[in-house]
């Protein structure tokens, strides 16, 4: 345990960064809260006045709200499921010794370094495009005359595919690191106990990964709630928009700063609720 004196020094040493950090976080939040209670439309910027809870009411009763709320849940939920499932599988595979493992691992991580706007453009124009896309080409190769128009017919699924592609490397990386910290003698002990590979995975590997899986879910939830570039670039906001996109369109299409700010606050509250329950559920199921 530290002495009183060393603790005091610690506090003073932390103070500057704490002040900067709280200002950093607090100022935008305070401004957002302030705008959320104002009637403030950019088409009529001089006429701002106290608006009470009306901005919240209008945002929540927007016909797009329910749909975009459900989209958000679907987008976050399915991406997490796919990246965790894929990540666990890839981590187990990449943990095996094989020739060229170093290179494969490096390649695995690369999608994570590509900007979302860039990768969305690539997916939109080179991979999922109904005429020039790779998927369409594959379909035509197998004799189809009418390739799938991904963004037209399956806008949400398309976004989920892109986002999953981007976040799979992250999940894999974290889980692979965790796999490497699994004690080799555990595997030997399980072999002595006669555990076949599937039981070894179920009773030893998966519980070992439970904590990193919780971390991945938490981090991904925070970032996936804010997905925007992929929806904007692929122009599917009208069908597959999420809450972030709805906030954007309140500001961009309706010029309504007040409603956008209220939407932002609601999104923050929802995000906190979601992550709170996620952590509890995941923690309970995997720890045991």
């Amino acid at each position, binding site marked *: 345990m530290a002495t009183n004196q060393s603790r005091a020094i610690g506090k003073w040493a932390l103070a500057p960064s704490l002040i900067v950090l709280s200002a950093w976080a607090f100022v935008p939040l305070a401004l957002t809260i302030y705008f959320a209670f104002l009637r403030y439309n950019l088409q009529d910027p001089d006429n701002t006045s106290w608006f009470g809870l009306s901005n919240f009411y209008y945002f929540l009763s927007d016909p797009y709200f329910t749909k975009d709320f459900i989209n958000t849940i679907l987008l976050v939920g399915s991406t997490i499921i796919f990246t965790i499932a894929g990540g666990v599988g890839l981590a187990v595979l990449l943990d095996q010794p094989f020739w060229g493992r170093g290179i494969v691992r490096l390649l695995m991580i690369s999608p994570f370094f590509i900007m979302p706007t860039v990768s969305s453009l690539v997916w939109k124009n080179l991979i999922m495009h109904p005429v020039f896309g790779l998927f369409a080409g594959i379909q035509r190769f197998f004799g189809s005359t009418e390739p799938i128009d991904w963004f037209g017919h399956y806008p949400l699924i398309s976004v989920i595919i892109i986002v999953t592609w981007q976040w799979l490397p992250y999940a894999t990386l974290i889980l692979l690191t965790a796999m490497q910290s699994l004690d080799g003698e555990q595997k030997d*002990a399980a072999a002595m106990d*006669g555990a076949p590979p599937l039981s070894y995975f179920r009773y030893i590997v998966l519980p070992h990964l439970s904590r990193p899986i919780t971390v991945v879910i938490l981090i991904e939830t925070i970032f996936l709630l804010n997905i925007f570039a992929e929806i904007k670039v692929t122009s599917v906001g009208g069908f597959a928009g999420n809450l972030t996109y709805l906030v954007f369109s309140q500001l961009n299409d309706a010029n309504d700063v007040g409603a956008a700010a209220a939407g932002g606050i609601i999104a923050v509250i929802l995000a906190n609720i979601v992550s709170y329950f996620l952590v509890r559920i995941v923690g309970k199921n995997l720890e045991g």
Partner: protein
Amino acid sequence: MGTIQLKKVRKAFGESIIIPGADLDIKHGEFIVFVGPSGCGKSTLLRMIAGLEDLTSGEILIDGKDCSDAAPASRGLSMVFQSYALYPHMTVRNNIAFGLKMAGETPEQIAPKVAKAAETLNLTEYLDRKPGQLSGGQRQRVAIGRAIVRNPSGFLFDEPLSNLDAALRVNMRIFIMQLHKDLGATMVYVTHDQVEAMTMADRIVVLNRGNIEQVGSPLELYNKPNSKFVAGFIGSPKMNFVEGNIAAKHKAKTIGVRPEHIDIVSGKGEWQGKILLTEHLGSDSFLHVDAGDAGRLVVRAPGEFAGKPGDNISLKPDAARIHKFDAQDLSIR
């Protein structure tokens, strides 16, 4: 039944040959200790018996049956690992039960076996804890519980006591010996500590760079070591080795005398020396002596020996207890 036979067992990792070829017959119910310096291949040999490491060539017979390629769990052997290798997220109960569960036993069959193992090992009140909540000694007992619950014909221990403190180590050593008596199962025990080897073994297997140097009872190895390596490894403090003229007088390249086989005599002994250091253990005193031509020797004196560093003493080795070694470091008998 619990016989284990190694026939020309050989192990190479790529280019490096770890076990050049080992032959060994382990009888039912024997307590066998593999001893040797760190890195000499003890663990590798044990893991090959367990089935955790493939043989490069040769064969392993367990209960007379060729098990060289058999899966670890099908060999009827249990293993206790140096790091215990408990499953950290399972309770003590589930740790002990895991092997039975994998063998397809029902919860009704498993429960009494786990209860009995826990009782033997004084673990009953810890059954619902996780390994992280146990002390080192308790974890060690869980690891042993996991091994005995399957009622194997043989146990394999890989330096199971090296992570325990000195007092606990002595207790566990006695506990394992008692367990061996009670179960009557074959035990193969790996250690780098010759005291453990001497106190526990029916027969000791001394390994040197992957070669079996000698197999024998503790006293055989102590009294009749085959080589300088075994002579130096068995016994504590280590045997004194003297070369040069003194050894030549005995027609040997090297002679060896244990500290307990050198007498301190009044008058003129065979060697004259000056005490450099004394270690007082109470029951004995160990003197480090500069003995001129004979070099630096360790000599055992009685606990109440009064000599101090700087004193001159005369030494007389017990002629019948002088070991002679040739240029190849093998014993001359």
